[in-house]
């Protein structure tokens, strides 16, 4: 793969040399290609969630889909999970901040590739998808329901009740509301695990470089190639947006203000860790179906650090063209806004010592457009 990468570096240079007005301009160096190749192949292999015994179960997926789209689960009977996570809107709502019973503080995250997450929510307050599926149901600002209400709805619907019994081997247990709610969360998680993004133009380019396929590599737009050179080069975007899913799955202060109003701040990861540690629904808890508690290392080992204040989850960069607006508070409307934010970032408000992870890039207009072109190439539509 490394030899092929070197050959392609030469090819990429040659193609540019014979092409455009910027004919003497190098595009991707070998170092950049080496980093680029680490961001694939796509799709990645995925194994069923051992903490969820119905992960991958077709009947559970079907039940989870019905629950996901049912407004009856919400307190007012009008709001389903799909109200905010709309399949036609990139599995989000395209609003700056979500709207439940009231306007929320954070942007609704897309569910594309959610099964690959290590942490769930902008603050990572859950370490698994089934717990995260339950959270909005019970939040008075979101779906404003209770375990009793949700279980009553399922039990009172003959089709849902039958589907539940088919999946879990018994009727919904109204005497153990928490267990029944967790089971419903597991069915919804099983459905959400099927929401995956397809291959993008970047993936085709990446694989072409890996194979030494000159013709296929040449199909990738020149602007996106220049953007890739920035992304994998002096932009240092791969400090955080790394791997095939373009995220390290962790948290970062990206210089986006977290003051919500007079006397109110969004504490981000700092608050999320607090909620995680207080939760019964973690991978270390009794509701995990994994006897080995494989994923429990996260909740057991995660550190609560001062720098977590104001840190938010590093999102995947896949399918961004479908999931505007951006950042944890939806404050940036377009990808160009995002790139300009990083280009002119105010490092004084970032609490960091040592070499800056984030530093202003001072991109010119063409470089901004090139980086946007690269980001757009990570999307399938």
């Amino acid at each position, binding site marked *: 793969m490394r030899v092929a990468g070197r050959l392609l570096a030469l090819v990429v240079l040659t193609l540019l040399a014979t092409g455009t007005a910027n004919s003497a301009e190098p595009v991707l160096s070998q170092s950049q290609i*080496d*980093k680029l190749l*680490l961001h694939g192949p796509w799709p990645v292999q995925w194994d069923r969630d051992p903490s969820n015994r119905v992960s991958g179960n077709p009947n559970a997926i079907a039940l989870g889909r019905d629950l996901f789209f049912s407004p009856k689960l919400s307190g007012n009977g009008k709001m389903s999970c799909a109200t905010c996570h709309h399949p036609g809107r990139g599995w989000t709502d395209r609003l700056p901040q979500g709207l439940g019973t009231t306007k929320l503080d954070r942007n609704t995250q897309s569910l594309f590739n959610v099964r690959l997450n*290590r942490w769930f929510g902008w603050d990572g307050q859950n370490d698994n998808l089934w717990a995260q599926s339950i959270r909005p149901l019970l939040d008075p600002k979101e779906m404003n329901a209770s375990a009793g209400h949700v279980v009553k709805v399922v039990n009172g619907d003959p089709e849902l009740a039958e589907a539940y019994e088919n999946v879990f081997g018994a009727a919904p247990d109204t005497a153990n509301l928490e267990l029944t709610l967790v089971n419903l969360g597991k069915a919804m998680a099983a459905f959400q695990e099927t929401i995956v993004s397809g291959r993008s133009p970047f993936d085709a380019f990446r694989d072409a470089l890996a194979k030494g396929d000159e013709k296929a590599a040449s199909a990738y737009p020149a602007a996106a190639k220049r953007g890739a050179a920035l992304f994998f080069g002096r932009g240092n975007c*791969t*400090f*955080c947006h*790394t*791997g095939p899913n373009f*995220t*390290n*799955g*962790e*948290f970062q202060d990206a210089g986006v203000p977290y003051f919500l109003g007079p006397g109110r701040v969004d504490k981000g990861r700092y608050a999320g860790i607090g909620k995680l540690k207080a939760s019964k629904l973690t991978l270390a808890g009794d509701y995990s179906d994994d006897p080995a508690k494989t994923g429990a*290392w*996260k909740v*057991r*080992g*995660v*550190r609560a*650090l001062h*720098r977590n204040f104001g840190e938010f989850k590093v999102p995947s960069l896949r399918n961004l063209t479908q999931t505007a607006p951006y950042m944890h508070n939806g404050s940036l409307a377009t990808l160009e806004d995002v790139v300009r934010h990083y280009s002119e970032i105010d490092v004084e408000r970032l609490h*960091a*010592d*040592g*070499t800056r*992870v984030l530093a202003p890039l001072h991109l010119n207009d063409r470089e901004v457009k090139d980086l946007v072109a690269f980001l757009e190439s990570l999307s399938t539509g």
Partner: protein
Amino acid sequence: MIRTIITGAFCLGLSTSATWAGACGAPDTWHTLTPEDQTSFKAALNLGANTPTVGAPFDVELQVCSTGSKSLDRLSVDATMPAHKHGMNYQPQLSRTGEGQYKATGFLFHMPGHWKITVSVYSDGAPSHLSMDINVP
């Protein structure tokens, strides 16, 4: 006093065909840690066959031995990115697997670049440190 590691190695049933030229009698495929300060201990660390991948959890094995009469009270292991002056988001969990042998689970390097793994050994209340550098692509 910690007994020599060779005894511990045989107790684990490890292959006697391995080359045991590393620190504390560890296989020479292990990394010998470099003392950061005056220490009466040596240590070797095993990362396994592959360099850690950014964003993927991994475990390490440790062998620690005394070079003199000092006894080991306790030890800890951690990692930092010296250039960025930050550590990992997770505290590795350490367990003893034999005489002078340990396993540390729950490492995760969340950024590419230069990391430093540091083993801190405590004897008579005084710490000393041994480390190794690793570059993660």
